[in-house]
């Protein structure tokens, strides 16, 4: 595996890893790691360092919805401009163009069900190019970003083996 690819795989799982340790486990000089990271950031390959939070374990109420949106693509711009109108809302977490039965998949985070439904009925459905929406509320997250939530990891192995 190329160093860059290996580095990305590591920091995708652990963005807080110490640079010196990163250099050691990749078997390269620390300065190479620093330079590579800087370039990846400048090129927009690395576009943020986020924290994964299991909100269910906090007392903070949050609801996440997946919204299927069917739209009319616009001449000369396809889906881009309608996607932009949607993703500029800060409460919108992600927007994907999807193949199949609908066009855009929008994920939305709100404090309450009402807040999300208000957004859908007032903001999203009323856009000229939106033909229809179907809103799915997430009831429980089992796995997110490759991480299984609420999983106990215990070492099942015998403590010493040949």
């Amino acid at each position: 595996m190329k160093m860059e690819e290996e580095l990305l795989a590591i920091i995708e799982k652990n963005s807080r890893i110490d640079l010196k340790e990163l250099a050691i486990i990749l078997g390269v000089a620390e300065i190479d790691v620093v330079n590579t990271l800087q370039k990846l950031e400048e090129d927009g390959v690395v576009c943020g360092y986020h924290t994964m939070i299991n909100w269910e374990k906090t007392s903070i109420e949050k609801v996440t919805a997946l919204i299927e949106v069917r739209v009319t693509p616009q001449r000369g711009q396809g889906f881009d401009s309608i996607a932009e109108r949607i993703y500029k809302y800060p409460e919108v977490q992600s927007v994907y163009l999807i193949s199949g039965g609908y066009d855009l998949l929008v994920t939305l985070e709100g404090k309450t069900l009402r807040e999300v439904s208000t957004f859908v009925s007032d903001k999203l459905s009323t856009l000229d190019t939106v033909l229809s929406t179907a809103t799915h509320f997430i009831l429980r997250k089992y796995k997110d970003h490759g991480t299984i939530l609420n999983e106990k990891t215990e070492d099942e192995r015998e403590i010493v083996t040949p």
Partner: protein
Amino acid sequence: MRNPVSDAIVGIKPSGIRKFFDIVTEMNDKDVISLGVGEPDFETPWHIRDMGIYSLEKGKTHYTGNTGLIELRKEICNYIKRTQGVSYDPVSETLVTVGGSEAIDIGIRAMCNPGDEVIIPQPSYVSYEPCAILAGAKPVIIDLKEENEFRLTAEELKAAITDKTKVLILPFPNNPTGAIMEKSDLEAIRDVIIENDIYVMSDEIYAELTYKDKHVSIVSLPGMKERTILINGFSKAYAMTGWRLGYACGPAEIIKQMTKIHQFCIMCAPTTSQYAAVEALKNGDSDVAEMRTAYNQRRRFLINAFREMNIKCFEPFGAFYIFPCIKEFGMTSEEFAQRFLAEEKVAAVPGTAFGNSGEGFLRISYAYSIEKLREAMKRFARFAEKLRAEQAK
């Protein structure tokens, strides 16, 4: 009452690992970090487990043929062909066993007459010597040397050969040292093997876990396939230790006799495991590559940690072990391991559990997360400092 047990068995000393295991278990301390495990920390990749489950659902709950599912034997032969360029016949030259361990046992039994000598380079896995003794053969130990990075040299081999020598055990990539034998190392011993007309049992269970070049099997050298039993399995490469599945490939006349023992003792390897193993060989390459990358990162982490502690340690390129030298502390491996456990709560297996030539060394397994290893190395550094301070007094 008469003595109920066999003198031969009583004469075999229990594994040094077992003794250390008992000490660690007795401590029963949640804070103990173990670096003593000889199996992957990864779980078996899901698609492989899923295939095992699927086979159960489909009612594949019966014996298979003695030598194993033909589909599996074919996949095994494909694998050796694509990795080593050597062709085996899945029908007459391939046997599916209960782990590599069974293949070691029945291979030695199938090859040795009473009094034949089996050359065993050490430090190495714990079962070769007892298996040889139980087969009525005589184990002849070669003490591998750190200055050779624990590789076997032609001189060492030559010196160990007598007119009774029948089999050489070739345990590389090596547990516990992490040593490998590169192609040139194998070429150097090849002539000695052929000149003296001895057979080789090449235990390549760690073949997929090398960190320099790809593993080269001795069977790929001219003239070696016909005098070698190649042993491998699924435990280490695919993290399938609990499935108990291995195999042996070799000359038909040896495999035939091994199959006889296998047939009477075992009948056949577990069926569920065999179906899962087919999936592993067909679609498991990327899983192996991913695990290998992770092991290599940990390996570099440990090499660096020992370098920073100024503890002598050759760079191992295979398996998932590192074998630091602790001679400077003036203790035996066992004393060191026991004090390290008692004072820093880290369990690492004394090198002597793998033969006398492991004296002065410790086997550190890196089948652990970097987080665990980081904490363990912190404790190691603290312990080394304390011992050096004691010595300075």
